[in-house]
């Protein structure tokens, strides 16, 4: 068994989703979190709080899109 065989996306849509997932995680950690780490208020809330909820709802949005992509890919096999 080859040691170089791994599980990776096999379609353009799959790669798009992987990049989106990685971008979401990158958005919530350093260095990105350093760029939003400022003592200012947005909509009455600290910027870091607003950014945290932007990330949270972006996760929701990306998974919604991902479901659509998967369902489209699965349809031809139905």
């Amino acid at each position, binding site marked *: *068994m*080859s*040691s*170089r*065989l*791994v*599980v*990776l996306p*096999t*379609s353009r849509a799959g790669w798009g989703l992987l990049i989106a*997932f990685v971008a*979401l*995680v990158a958005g*919530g*950690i*350093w*260095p990105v*979190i*350093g760029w939003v*780490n*400022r*003592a200012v*208020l947005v*909509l*009455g*809330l*600290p*910027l*870091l*709080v607003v950014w*945290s*909820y932007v*990330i*949270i*709802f972006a*996760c*929701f949005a*990306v*998974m*919604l899109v*991902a*479901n659509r992509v*998967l369902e489209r890919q699965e349809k031809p096999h139905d």
Partner: protein
Amino acid sequence: MTSPWPLLITLAYVAIAMVIGLRARGGRRMNSLEEWGVAGRSMGPVTLYLLIAAGSVSAYTFMGAPGWAYAKGVPVFYVAVYLAYLALVAWYFGPKVWQFGERFGHVTQASAIADRYQSPLLGALAALVMSIGSIAYAVLQTIGSAYILNVMSGGAIPVWLAVPLVLACIAVYLFVSGQRAIGRTNAFQGVLMLAVAWAVGLWALHSATGGLDVGALFSRLLAEHGDFLTLPGGGGDMSFSFWTTSIIVSMFSFMPPVWTQWMSASSARTIRRSATWLPTYYVVILPMVVVGFIGIFALPDLARSDTVVLEYAMQFLPVWLVGLLGAGTLAASMSSSEPFIHSVALSWSKDVAQPLLGLSEAFTGKLARWMILPLMALVIAPLAIAEPGSLVMILLVGLGFATQVLPAFIGMFLWPRASKWGVMAGIVSGFLVTVAFTTLWKHPLGIHAGFWGLMLNLPVFVAVSLATRPAPAEVVERFFRIAAPNGLTRLGGAEKGRAVEASVLGRE
């Protein structure tokens, strides 16, 4: 507190939870692992959404998180971020775990590990060590439950009595209805927590500012405690590196109850739909944290920061809302302790006792159900009453270990060449580093101990896997037909998306 209403409202919640939990059985026989353990793999998307959401929102949300806001400020939001990332993890891995369970009959995380690596020893090891963190977590939640009953009764119910009371309530419906009880009660508790959190948060904001303008609160905080609005926070201890590594470590902690929850779904698609909506539930954290910020001005001299919401409620909110807060906090702690108690009982029976004693599947099903009683009476209750000072440390080490099991999952989902010796070597080396950097030299360079563990664990796992024999080809193929339905990719090669029969077995 002299009014009886807070205690009555809290007890009313307990009574409703018990009725829901007992009725969840619905006349089914509960002596099989499939039924008691994973609810016959029957849960729909809404129940699963609330099951996972309520399970992940513990008493920490009602006590610990506002306490962090009170003592440190915005660093508390790392929890909200990693919970959202756990939804991404559930979205990707959950459907595959469900398929493993459905096709190969797994009911626990450790049984999947034992099957993938063809090693009951590795499965038992994973079950036993994972149970350290799980038990510590269940004990902490039980302490939270007992504390709430104690406060709501004005001290009339002492902690030593509150602990067995709470555990007895959980034991009754858990024994009778198993995972179905957890699903139904968590659904109820999830809705209750969301409603209570926002009711308390908005009422507290109104009572503190005279309106619902959260900007007034944070403008004052900005002027007087600006350091609470950025990292490293008021305590000065949440650096960028600790924020980042805490999120990564928490994100890759595949806790056994979550695994069981995934396997309880009615289909792989159900998990994806539930996971998609999961981040929306974490708006439950915001109002509770706002009360913590209000407490900075309203209760400047608190001895224990994690009592900020309860203290504020008892001083400034109506008694009926105090009662609802008690019910909501109790719901949060019970909804989080139940899955861990259930999961430990299930895993000790299935992954330790069955292979060790050669038990039949039918007997193991009965044993798992009865196992919750000694687990609660002899382990969780005494620990919760004694409240050992090292409990949080045990929990941290336990959760640190949970992350160290990552190689087992890499070998299950991503890399077919992983071997059982590679996984064991990675786990042991990572665990030792995590223990050392949690107890002796805490989080060196501001990096989470579990992350240091992973940095040693992963290279050791790869190196030892390459030097030792992998699991039999037919087992690897069985797993990777599910993990990689479109085939595997050769790193550094041009062959992509090849048929799994060829690529997994190396017959290309």
